[in-house]
C-alpha cells in the first residue's frame, strides 16, 4: 500500500539501525510523546532491535490514558440519563470510571454509540430531535479541529439538542511538566508527528532552548521512527538541543493554519487535570464563552462531580516515563486489557496495553 509499504521497508530499516549503531557511543533516554508511536515501536518489534544503549520511555500522548477520572464519571452520569444519546470514539467505552464503564452503561439500557467522527454525532442529533445528543470531545490537538468544526456546524445549523463534553489536552505544556519534574530522565523527545501536522512545530524551539533537549518531529512507520531516533541521537552525541523535522512529508513549521483557526475560534486554553500527572495550568482546551450553550458540563450540571483517584497502579509514573509497565505489581495479573485497573491498559495506544499485547512472554504473568 502506497505511503505505508515504503516506510516499512526492511532494507531501509536495517540501514537506519546500522547507522544509529554507528552514531551512538553511550546510553541515551528518549521519550516518544505519542501512544501511537509507542504502539508502532512494539507492533513492529522495533524496540528490541535498537542498539542497546538507547532506552525508550513512553510519553503521555494517549488521550484515553490522560483523561481524568472525574471527566469519565461526568460522562457516565450523562450517558445514564434516559433522555440522552451519548456518542464517543470507541476506545473511551472501556475506560472504567469510579464504578462502571460506558459498556456497562450501555448494557444496562443507556444509549451509548461509537462514532468515527463528531459529525456523525451531529447527524444523530438531527435525526433524533426529541433526544439530547452528547459527544465526548477528548484528545490532543489532532482531534480538536474536527470537534471544533462540529460545534461550528451545530451553531450554523441551529441544532439545539447537541452538546460536547470537552476534555481536550495539549502537548507542549505536558512536555514542560515532564522536563521540570525533579525525577525527569528524558534527554530527548520524539515529538508526535500527527499533532505537529496540525500545530506545526513553532511551539518547540523555546522548550528545546529552555531545557536543553533535542526535539525531533517524528512519524509513525518504522522508517519514520528510526529517522527520528537517529536525528535525536546525533544531536545528543553532538551536544546539540535543537528542533528538527524528521517527518517532512506531513509536517511544516507553521502547521495547518485553517485547522488552527477553527480550533482558536471555538476553544481557548484552560487549566486541565491529567490523569496520572495532575493539574497542569493552561494545558487544555475548553469552549469559549460564546459557545457555552454547547457545553454538556453545564447543560447537565455535572461540573460538581469531583472524583479522587485511588493509588492502585503506577500509571502516573509510566505516563511520565519513570517506570516501564512490567515494573507495576499488578501488570498482567489483576490488570489486563479485559479488566483494566489503569487507563494505559485500556486504550489501543496505552503503553501498558502495548506491553501486554506484544511483550508479555518476557515477564512472569
Amino acid at each position, binding site marked *: *500500500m502506497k505511503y*505505508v509499504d515504503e516506510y*516499512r521497508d*526492511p532494507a531501509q530499516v536495517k540501514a537506519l539501525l546500522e547507522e544509529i549503531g554507528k552514531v551512538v557511543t553511550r546510553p541515551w533516554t528518549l521519550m516518544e510523546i505519542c501512544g501511537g508511536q509507542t504502539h508502532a515501536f512494539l*507492533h*513492529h*518489534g*522495533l524496540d528490541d*532491535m535498537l542498539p542497546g544503549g538507547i532506552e525508550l520511555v513512553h510519553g503521555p500522548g494517549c*488521550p484515553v490514558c490522560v483523561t481524568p*477520572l472525574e471527566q469519565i464519571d461526568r460522562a457516565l452520569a450523562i450517558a445514564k440519563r434516559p433522555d440522552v444519546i451519548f456518542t464517543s470514539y*470507541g*476506545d473511551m*467505552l472501556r*475506560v*472504567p470510571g469510579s464504578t*462502571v*464503564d460506558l*459498556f*456497562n452503561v*450501555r*448494557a444496562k439500557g443507556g444509549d451509548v454509540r*461509537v*462514532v*468515527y467522527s463528531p459529525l456523525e454525532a451531529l447527524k444523530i442529533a438531527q435525526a433524533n430531535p426529541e433526544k439530547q445528543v452528547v459527544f465526548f470531545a*477528548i*484528545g490532543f490537538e489532532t*482531534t480538536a479541529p474536527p470537534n471544533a468544526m462540529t460545534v461550528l456546524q451545530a451553531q450554523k445549523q441551529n441544532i439545539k439538542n447537541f452538546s460536547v463534553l470537552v476534555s481536550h489536552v495539549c502537548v507542549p505544556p505536558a512536555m*514542560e511538566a515532564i522536563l*521540570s*519534574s525533579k525525577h525527569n530522565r528524558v534527554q530527548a523527545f520524539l515529538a508526535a508527528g*500527527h499533532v505537529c501536522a496540525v500545530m506545526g512545530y513553532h511551539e518547540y524551539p523555546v522548550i528545546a532552548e529552555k531545557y536543553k533537549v533535542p526535539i525531533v518531529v517524528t512519524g509513525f512507520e518504522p522508517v519514520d521512527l528510526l529517522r527520528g531516533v537517529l536525528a535525536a541521537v546525533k544531536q545528543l552525541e553532538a551536544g546539540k538541543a535543537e528542533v528538527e523535522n524528521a517527518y517532512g512529508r506531513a509536517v511544516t513549521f507553521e502547521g495547518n493554519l485553517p485547522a488552527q483557526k477553527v480550533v482558536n475560534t471555538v476553544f481557548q486554553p484552560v487549566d486541565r487535570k491529567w490523569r*496520572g*500527572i*495532575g493539574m497542569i495550568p493552561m494545558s487544555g482546551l475548553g469552549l469559549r464563552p460564546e459557545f457555552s450553550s454547547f457545553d454538556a458540563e453545564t447543560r447537565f450540571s455535572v461540573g460538581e462531580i469531583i472524583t479522587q*483517584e*485511588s*493509588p*492502585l*497502579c*503506577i500509571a*502516573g*509514573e509510566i505516563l511520565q516515563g*519513570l517506570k516501564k509497565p512490567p515494573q507495576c505489581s499488578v501488570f498482567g495479573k*489483576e490488570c489486563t*486489557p*479485559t*479488566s*483494566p485497573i*489503569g*487507563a*494505559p491498559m485500556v*486504550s*489501543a*495506544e496505552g503503553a501498558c496495553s502495548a506491553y501486554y*499485547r*506484544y*511483550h*508479555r*512472554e518476557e515477564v512472569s504473568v
Partner: protein
Amino acid sequence: MNNEFDFEGYTCPVPIKPNDTVVLGHGSGGKLSHDLINRLFLPELGKAAPRALDDAAIVNINGQRLALTTDSHVVSPLFFPGGDIGRLAICGTVNDLAMVGAKPVALTCGFVIEEGLSFEILQRVVQSMRDSAAEAGVYIAAGDTKVVQKGSADKLFINTAGVGVVESDVNISGANAQVDDVVIISGTLGDHGIAVMSAREGLNFETDLRSDVAPLNHLIAAMMNAGEIHVLRDPTRGGLATTLNEIAIQSELTIELQETALPVKRQVHAACEMLGFDPLYVANEGKLVAFVKPEDAEKILSVMHQTRYGEEAVIIGRVIRTSNPHVRLRTAIGGTRLIDMLPGEMLPRIC
C-alpha cells in the same frame, strides 16, 4: 514552569470494574467470550464434554461417531456484500462440523423473527439458505419459528444446528497440534469483517470487497485425502489471532507466524490502517487454518490450490515448543511481537 511539578505520588488508577453484567464483548469471540465459557458455561454444563472447546463435539452412538454442533447468527445488516444472514447460518454450521473432520449431513434451523419483517426479506434469506445448503450437500431436516414483539430482537436471528459423520480413523482437534507442524491458511484474512463493516450505517467508506462466507466441507474432504491433518479451525469472530491462541492453549505449544506470509487484500489492509484494526483480529467466514504434518504440507497445499475456496492457500507459520505456550509473529522488518487474543469488542482508535 520551574519545578512546579513534583510527580511523586501521582497515580492513575481506576477501580477494578465489577463484572456483574453481560456486555457485547462477551459475544465478540475473543478473550471475554473465552472467559465466559470457561468460568460459567463449562463448569455448569460441560462436565461430560471433553472436547467442548472444538468447533464441534463428537459423540459415539453404538460405534458410529457423529459430530454435533450449533451456532446462532446475528448480523447487521442482514444483507452485505458477498452474502447474507442465511448463507452465514448454513456455512457457519457446515464449517464447524467439517473442522473436526466430519462429513456434514443434516441441519436444523430456528428462526427468531421480529414482528414487522417483510416476507420479501424473509423469502430472500430462506432462498439463500436453500442455495448454500445445496452447495454444501446438506439438507435441512427440521426447523422452528418464533416471532417476538417489535424491539425485542433485531429483525431476524437464525440458529442452526448440524450433525455429521466422522470416520473411525479421523482425529482432528485443536488439542492435536504437534511440534514442527506447518500452519496453512486457506486464503486472505479479514474479508468478511471489513465487508460487513463497510455496509454498516455510519461508516462512510466504500469498497468492492466481498464477504468470503462459504462452505468449506468439500475443500476439507480433498485436504484429508492429500495428507495428515492434526488441527482444523475456521477463524471467525476474534480473527486468526484468537483462533491460534485457542489452539496454542489446547495443544500447549507455541505458534510462530511470519508477517510477510500473511495474505491480506489491499482493501482490507487499507481499511484496517484507517480504522486502527489489525487484520489478524478481523472475522472470516470462509477461511480455515490447518496444522499439518510437515512432510505432507506441499501435497495438501497443491490440492487446496486446485479446489474451490482454497486457491489462495499459503503457509504462514509453524509450531515450536517453548516454556510458555503463546502465539508470536516475526514482523516484516525482522522484529518479534506477541499475538494475544482479541480482548473484548474491537474498538476503533481515536486518532
